[in-house]
């Protein structure tokens, strides 16, 4: 047992911090909550790519650096701590590259991975549909073989970053006659193809991060199929375990935590800094405790992946836990700010650039994305505790 990171890992963390500090000094971006998913900054992504920080864990033969998942966790932890605009490459780096490494053909690896490594693939995840949310296997979007092509028809929804994407990872039905889990395949293709259209959905923060994506007679070459035909559902389950495993499930709104601590030190009420108020000290300490417990969950998942095992119920546990923390943080922040907490980022008098307001609203979705907390608890109950289904 050793809870320490290695000297090289600490050095790596320092290197990432220096890079981000330097970026901040140059005023290239401003820290913000949800920047991993909403901060689309192609130039930032290019600079991250130049550092070799995309595809960190991939095999060297695929252009990666074969570094550990703990290393990637360190990298993402710092990106999130600084609220860096990493949305352009996040999905491709987190799960799509890995999926191609795992399931792709040699040709696909040669063609697609370098583009991801260069930070040029802004990937949307085409999973949910209007009638297929938690029950993903009920999806209806079809992919029908036609000579050297598949023809895609249907609709996806809640597609994160759909307005910025140039590639989409799509889950579609390839065998309508098979049992619903057994007739699904995965595809990866450019969204510039004719027949793809995107319609933003305005969320409760006023943002247009979610999208509906429509596919009308979209012809994609057969080489866009990733992995085995009709095995897509099982592939996607594995990818979801990775999708849930990351530090963004604990630190999506970390800039708010840092700002809140600073605010309580600098803001006086009744002649004393808020940080001297016993109740506020207790609230902030409780958040810190919950955060640190969450961090241990996250690092546990990384150590499991570094043992060569795919994360399983552990990432369900860490994601359900982490998003509950993020929501608690946002809610407590508004409570501590009191009346000021209700002010929107555009309002006169708003403290902390409206981070609390934004995060409170935005965090409602955290426990829904990538598996609702209820689905995650089902996974825990069935896979870890082996409780019966009937």
């Amino acid at each position, binding site marked *: 047992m050793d*809870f320490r990171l290695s000297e090289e890992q600490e050095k790596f963390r320092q290197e990432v911090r220096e890079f981000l500090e330097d970026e901040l000094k140059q005023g290239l971006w401003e820290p913000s909550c949800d920047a991993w998913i909403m901060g689309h900054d192609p130039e930032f992504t290019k600079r991250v790519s130049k550092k070799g920080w995309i595809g960190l864990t991939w095999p060297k033969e695929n252009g990666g650096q074969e570094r550990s998942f703990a290393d990637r966790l360190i990298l993402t932890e710092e990106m999130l701590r600084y609220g860096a605009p990493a949305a352009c490459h996040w999905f491709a780096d987190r799960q799509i590259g890995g999926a191609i490494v795992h399931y792709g053909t040699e040709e696909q690896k040669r063609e697609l991975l370098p583009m991801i490594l260069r930070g040029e693939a802004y990937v949307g995840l085409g999973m949910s549909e209007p009638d297929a949310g938690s029950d993903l296997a009920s999806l209806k979007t079809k992919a029908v073989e036609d000579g050297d092509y598949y023809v895609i028809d249907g609709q996806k929804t809640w597609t994160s970053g759909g307005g910025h994407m140039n590639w989409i990872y799509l889950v579609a039905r390839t065998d309508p006659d098979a049992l619903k889990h057994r007739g699904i395949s995965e595809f990866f293709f450019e969204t510039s193809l004719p027949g793809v259209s995107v319609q933003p959905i305005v969320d409760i923060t006023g943002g247009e991060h979610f999208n509906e994506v429509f596919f009308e007679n979209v012809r994609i070459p057969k080489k866009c199929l990733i992995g085995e035909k009709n095995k897509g559902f099982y592939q996607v389950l594995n990818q979801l375990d990775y999708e849930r495993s990351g530090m963004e499930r604990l630190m999506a709104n970390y800039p708010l935590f840092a700002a809140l601590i600073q605010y309580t030190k600098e803001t006086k009420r009744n002649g004393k800094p808020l940080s001297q108020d016993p109740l506020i000290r207790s609230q902030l300490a409780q958040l*810190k*405790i919950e955060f640190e417990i969450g961090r241990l969950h996250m690092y546990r998942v990384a150590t499991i992946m570094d043992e060569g095992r795919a994360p399983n119920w552990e990432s369900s*546990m860490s994601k359900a836990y982490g998003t509950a923390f993020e929501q608690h943080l946002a809610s407590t922040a508004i409570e501590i700010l009191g009346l000021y907490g209700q002010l929107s980022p555009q309002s006169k008098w708003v403290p902390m650039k409206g981070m609390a307001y934004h995060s409170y609203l935005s965090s409602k979705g955290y426990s829904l994305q990538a598996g609702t907390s209820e689905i*995650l608890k*089902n996974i825990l109950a069935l896979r870890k505790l082996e409780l019966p289904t009937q």
Partner: protein
Amino acid sequence: MDLALSEEQEMLKTMAHDFLTDKLPKTVVKEIEESEEGYSPELWKEVAGLGWMGLAFPEKYGGSDMSFLDLAILLEEMGRACLPGPYFSTVVLGGLSILDIGSEEQKQEYLPKIANGEAIFTLALTEPSASYDAGGIETKATANKDDYIINGTKLFVPDANVADYMLVVARTEAKSKAEEGITIFIVDAKSPGISHTVLKTIANDKLCEVVFDQLKVPKENILGELNQGWQEVQKIIQRAAVAKCCEMVGCIQQALDMTVDYAKERKQYDRPIGSFQVIQHYCADMATDVDGTRLSTYQAAWMLSEGLPCTQEVAIAKAWAGEACQRVMALAHQIHGAIGVTIDHDLQYYTRRAKAAEVSFGDASFYREIVAQEMGL
């Protein structure tokens, strides 16, 4: 980073688990709890024979030269088995404190006695103020030639009814700062001038009121530095808090395991209640709390074991464990239904111990304030 136990540690865990399961069916736990001594001298000898008393002592003091982390594994299993008796008091509060701050002479005198099961130790720290702050120490030790004369009342002293020795925390000098002027003494618990009364507690353990009336203690029995004892007391509390967390991990792990087994067996509406999502989610919540407690506890135990500064990690572990245990036990009861609130069901042993553990060696509020300080608030 490596969060797994080593092969040897896994073996120790299995061995401890098997031994304690065999020796401590709940009928035996009940019998021991209800006895006047609160421990089984036969079992005590067996535990000493296994080398568990001196597990974390160096060989030269009769120990096995293993680490605090190894001891943590034993404590977890003891918590799981509800081992009643003065193991915690003797080893964690007494032995490890002497090992940490005792003189060579003191170590040679007391540690082998602990290791071979001859001596029972305890710590007389808290007083009627029931506080773990220095200001709570009012018991006075007054210098008198080659001795100190101790007067005062200690409360919540574990196992004082059977202790051979006590570490007594007393005020040796009135100073403006509460943290100064405190000294720890090693006291022969059978000396005249000491009386005790066993309190009736929720965990059915032997917490005592101990009254010192003109108790005479030789000066050479000072443990650590005269007047500088509070710093050492804080380390003792810190170690005890982590050790308590280890027991709590065992306690709630067992409660979870019992609950999941019950949910698989108990049928209502012609199906196991564990097939209902509401029960599954309760169990998932329990498992998440158990794992969070385990991770933070072992992080703190590992850091203590490595001698690393860990004020914040210990505070986080104990604050978390205290409240997580309450959530776990509440759900364990909810899922067990009425059978779980009967005196003959095993669950109540864990319920009672978890509540006592929550307030022992610092509760969540106490440690949240420490975390706040560590955060620079």
